[in-house]
């Protein structure tokens, strides 16, 4: 089954990959090992899981404002997500993604948590503003 959803482009670009869905906000500064892309935040839903090469779906960023550089560093190390989808992107994630050229979209026409599951193949076209989900 293929689903197409329109949304808002935060950081322009095109990428596709396997979905990793996280219902908790993510703080990347001090919360991820940028050599491996594994989340290290204590008690976090994704703790111990890798975000490398995923299309990462989460509500919004949180925590320390140094996170923009972390998004950039993850992209340079090729240990970061291929693309990100938020309910509503905040500044920290937005700026890091723009610096690094990582596609980011938010405000999809349907709640991504209702539509996207772990392992779905997701195409993020953050030029046209369309997310395509293959389930």
């Amino acid at each position, binding site marked *: 089954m293929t689903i197409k959803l329109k949304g808002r482009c935060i950081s322009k670009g095109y990428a596709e990959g396997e979905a990793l869905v996280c219902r908790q906000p993510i703080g990347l500064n001090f*919360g991820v090992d940028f050599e491996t892309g594994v989340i290290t935040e204590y008690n976090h839903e994704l703790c111990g899981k890798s975000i490398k090469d995923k299309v990462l779906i989460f*509500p919004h960023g949180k925590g320390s404002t140094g996170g923009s550089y972390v998004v950039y560093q993850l992209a340079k190390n090729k240990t970061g997500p291929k693309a990100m989808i938020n309910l509503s992107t905040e500044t920290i994630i937005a700026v890091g993604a723009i610096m690094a050229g990582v596609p980011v979209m938010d405000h999809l026409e349907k709640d991504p948590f209702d539509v996207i599951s772990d392992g779905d193949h997701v195409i993020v076209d953050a030029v046209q503003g369309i997310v395509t989900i293959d389930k």
Partner: protein
Amino acid sequence: MQLTDVEKRMRDGEQGEPVRMAMEILIALGEIYEAERLVPVRSAHIAGLSLKSHGIAGTEWAEDLAKQGAKVCIPTTMNVVGVDRSRDLNLPREWEKNQLRIETAYECMGCYGTSTCVPYYCGFVPRFREHIAWAESSAVIFSNSVLGARDNREGGPSALAAGLTGRTPLHGLHLDENRRGDVLFRVTAHLSGIADYGALGSYVGRMIGTRVPVFEGIKGPSIEELVYLGSALASSGGVALFHAAGVTPEAPTIGSAFGGKRYDTVEVTVREIEEGRQKLTSGKERKVDYVAIGCPHCSLNQIKEISILLGGRKVKEETALWIHTNVAIKHLAKQLGYVKVIEDAGGIVTQDFCTILGNPEALGFKTLATNSPKMAFYAPGSNGLDVWYGSVEQCIDSAVSGYWKS
């Protein structure tokens, strides 16, 4: 977004590549957040300057900008970093070398090497309703809430972009309508000391995410207690603004804090404070080998209090006691003799540096005791340390005995 003629020329590269790049970031953010225009800002504060955030890629990005002649055009302060320029902490040499590269690059761009998360403790105090572009989540929430300045949660690069252009997009907390409260927290628990305020922030931050909490029942807090409440709200959640009725400038009353909006009410009793405290505690072994205080950086009052609490006792040989502050406060504390008292007892007072941005774990520490909610929140992920969280008295006692007592 509307740009002035000058801003259009900045965007088109008339003032060089760094200003062009800065405008690209600001315009992109402005479009995302549907800002009508850019607004002039009086000051900027850049965070994420630790090697842990910049990495080598970010370091090279900053060095390239400096080489291209980037210069800030408004007072721009620098956040705490991972090295103490006044002493040798025996951290790995490669770490220190790369950390100093970052500081040098930003100083070349004209930033002030304050190296602190509390620029308001060394003379950089935005006035009520002044637009600023500060990063450092604890400084953002403090300047918005306690000083009544207008600031969004800037990232390091967007704060630098504001420093290079003197502007930021007019959206979010720069606008009156976004500064009203969302949820009322009626605090009936008695709060005493920064660890209690930190526990409150830890509980509320987890619940409220990025919305605006309003507190009722907070009575006569010190500036330090408000700093630590804010730092906990901003790290456990993504809070950038809180109001406290009768305490902060935009909340003379509960009604004015909400500005006519409907709101839910949450009761905060001793139980909720205890829950906030538990969330910050990950300690397993009661043996403590590292006690660190000052995240955000200590005020002079906090350092004086620590020197009095030590009361002539010695820090246990296998335990380290590190107090974090900035160069300005350190200088004063030294002149007044507090640093000598702490160092004679076997502790140290660091400047520029802090636990989560530095890597004291390289010295083999395993279990941290602290009264700082932000440090307690980040240390397990950033430093791999187990954490005991409690009052400053408990922390100093554990430095002396080497054990944590609940």
